[in-house]
């Protein structure tokens, strides 16, 4: 087809020689700068492949004389981010944890830092939304075993729960009433009826009356006469709507029979103090955090609950 090349009269330009239903195409020469631009891109590409990783070899690509790598860039950015966060981390480290919520800037930083730390160390048990699960407390609600003000939360995180190798750990030991033969299955059944009555379920009956007697003899020392629990001993409030292991009859029977000995690691020896403070601030900010109790005031009232929700 290229034999049909001819000079187009009006333009003086040669045609490419193709013809489709009488339509021909002019072979207009490209401007020379276009060619030079093309050469420049080739030169640029060659220089680039020398400076940067480019040619694939068996194991890896050529490294390039500038030593650039995406890992290196990432590390640089991470280092820069750490350096940027250093002042606020130090400020958090200096500030007593109960004062962090009073400083909006520290609070924001601590909640953000706590949230990301939570996603690494805590979600395995408490869940990514801190909603917990059976045996793992929901940290969003207003029910706290060991206290819900920021200092109590901080203490719990720092020292953990039932760490056998640690003296300051949170420790409470409910007896395994059934397994250890303290109560008979019938007695356990009665006391469970009574506990359900305490939490507003079921009706008073002979069983609950017998249960009340057993409760008074065995449970009052920790859970209190009204069943409101005791945060000093980590004894749960039996009257509220929240159950750590479940409030149905079978679960309650299992709990009284075998006791529950949930464990949380202590983080004071794994994470630096600023990070523990950030975690405490984050957990405190989830919606159930309580106001800090001033030391001089009365001891923590046994009644936790709804009225105590505070920032």
């Amino acid at each position, binding site marked *: 087809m290229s034999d049909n090349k001819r000079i187009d009269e009006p333009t003086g330009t040669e045609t490419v020689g193709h013809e489709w239903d009488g339509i021909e195409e002019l072979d207009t020469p490209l401007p*020379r700068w276009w060619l030079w631009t093309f050469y420049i891109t080739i030169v640029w590409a060659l220089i680039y492949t020398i400076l940067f990783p480019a040619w694939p070899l068996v194991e890896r690509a050529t490294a390039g004389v500038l030593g650039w790598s995406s890992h290196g860039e990432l590390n640089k950015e991470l280092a820069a981010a750490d350096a940027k966060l250093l002042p606020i981390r130090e400020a958090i480290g200096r500030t007593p944890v109960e004062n962090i919520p009073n400083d909006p800037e520290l609070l924001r930083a601590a909640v953000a830092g706590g949230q990301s730390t939570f996603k690494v160390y805590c979600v395995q048990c408490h869940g990514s939304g801190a909603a917990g699960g059976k045996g793992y407390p929901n940290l969003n609600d207003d029910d706290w075993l060991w206290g819900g003000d920021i200092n109590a939360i901080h203490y719990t995180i720092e020292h953990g729960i039932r760490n056998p190798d640690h003296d300051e750990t949170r420790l409470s030991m409910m007896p395994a009433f059934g397994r250890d033969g303290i109560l008979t299955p019938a007695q356990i059944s009665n006391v469970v009826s009574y506990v359900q009555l305490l939490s507003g379920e079921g009706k008073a009956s002979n069983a609950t009356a017998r249960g009340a007697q057993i409760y008074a003899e065995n449970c009052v020392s920790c859970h209190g006469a009204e069943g409101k629990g005791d945060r000093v001993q980590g004894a749960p409030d039996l009257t509220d709507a929240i159950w750590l292991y479940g409030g149905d009859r079978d679960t309650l029977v299992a709990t009284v029979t075998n006791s529950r000995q949930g464990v949380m690691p202590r983080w004071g020896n794994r994470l630096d103090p600023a990070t523990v403070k950030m975690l405490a601030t984050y957990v405190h900010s989830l919606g159930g955090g309580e106001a800090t109790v001033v030391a001089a005031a009365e001891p923590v009232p046994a009644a936790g609950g*709804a009225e105590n929700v505070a920032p």
Partner: protein
Amino acid sequence: MSHPEDLKSLKPSLYEARKGVYPKAVDGTFRRLKWAIMAITLTIYYVTPWLRWDRGPYAPDQAVLVDLAHRRFYMFSIEIWPHEFYYVAGLLIMAGIGLFLVTSTVGRAWCGYACPQTVWTDLFLHVERFIDGDRNAQIRLKKAPMGATKLSKRTAKYAIWLAIAMATGGAWIFYFADAPTLLRDLFTGDAPYVAYATIGVLTATTFIFGGFMREQVCIYMCPWPRIQTALMDEKSLTVTYKDWRGEPRTHGIKKAQAEIADFDKVGDCIDCEQCVSVCPTGIDIREGPQIGCITCALCIDACDKVMTQIGRPRGLIDYVTEESADLEKAGKPPKPVIRTLLRPRTIAYFMLWGSIGLAMLFVLGQRTRIDISAQQDRNPLFVRLSDGHIRNAYTVKVRNMENRPREVEIGLEGLPDAIMWTAESTRDTGSRTVTVATPADAVAKTRIFVAAPAAGEPRKDIVFTVRGLDAKGGEDKTQVFFDREAAQ
């Protein structure tokens, strides 16, 4: 363009070197129009960032500012937030339809008068003439060997070009930051890296495009000439050489008498090549409409001057529509220009253009400067509280688009037995409304808890409302869900 016969013997090259264009200075109606448009457009470009506009203590006082860092666009009394970017889209649509309108009526007027490439090339051409002299002097200088004079002239020319180019690149960045501050920072070296980089790139492009590429940009790089060619019709004005009047062209009367037997039929064109020598893209308009013609109309000025000198009527080269050209060719009077300007197509474009503009103005006048959006916590969706109530949490964002801090009231509609409180307060202070302070021209993010009894539909619609508490008022609402456990 060479004659085809000359090329037959040559092997055509795949690549073509740029042919030098040395446009001659010219004066006339269209040249003056170009001066005026050049002055106006360059003034707008260089001066706009320096205009001030008082917006109070909480907003920048620059009249036109594209504040990328804070995601705000200021234009005199109008402030655009990122979510209102459709105004910019509307402006772009208006610009598009505006170009349709202009092109369908007056052809490539954008190319000839207002395009930055044209304006800056024109400016560079004037600098070139100022240093090197007019067309002939420029060609002589080009051919002359490099010597002291040529070197000094070249140096002077490039220096002035470079200064203009830097001023051009420099002016651009002032649209994106406070101009006086940025100017000071530029000289003290405190300006951001991107400012220097932008100036560098724009200096390079201005210098190269205005000084060297010139018409190559229009012919090879710009898609707009191709698009415009498709937009024009037989009623669009375009620069036309009236060949029916000009041909056969001659070199002087005596020569014409000798060469052409039928002297009465000698055309008006005296082949003086003035139209070619003034053309900034180096084309010969007498070859007819072509892609290289940006319709700057300088050839009209040049030809009119010659026609006046030889006592012929002006307008051998003129703005003519194809339709009128056919009429004139046939010896009939051309259609009046007003008839070609006002025709259904242009009127439709204008109505469309105008109605988009009016609609935007209307919406702009109607818009409220307060806005609420809420996002429900998904993990956990709801929380059972110790008294058995169910709590949902929401991240509520209130946009205060006024340039002053405001108090706003967030309210709750639906779920009559529910109360709400913010993360900063407590449940016992919960009520049906919360008051939030919003900073000036900012989004206030508030975490809001809503608690309601556990009994009820598993998923219920609730509405957060917001109301400005100052005199300006304004309100908005957003619908979200309240979730609780399905009844067992």
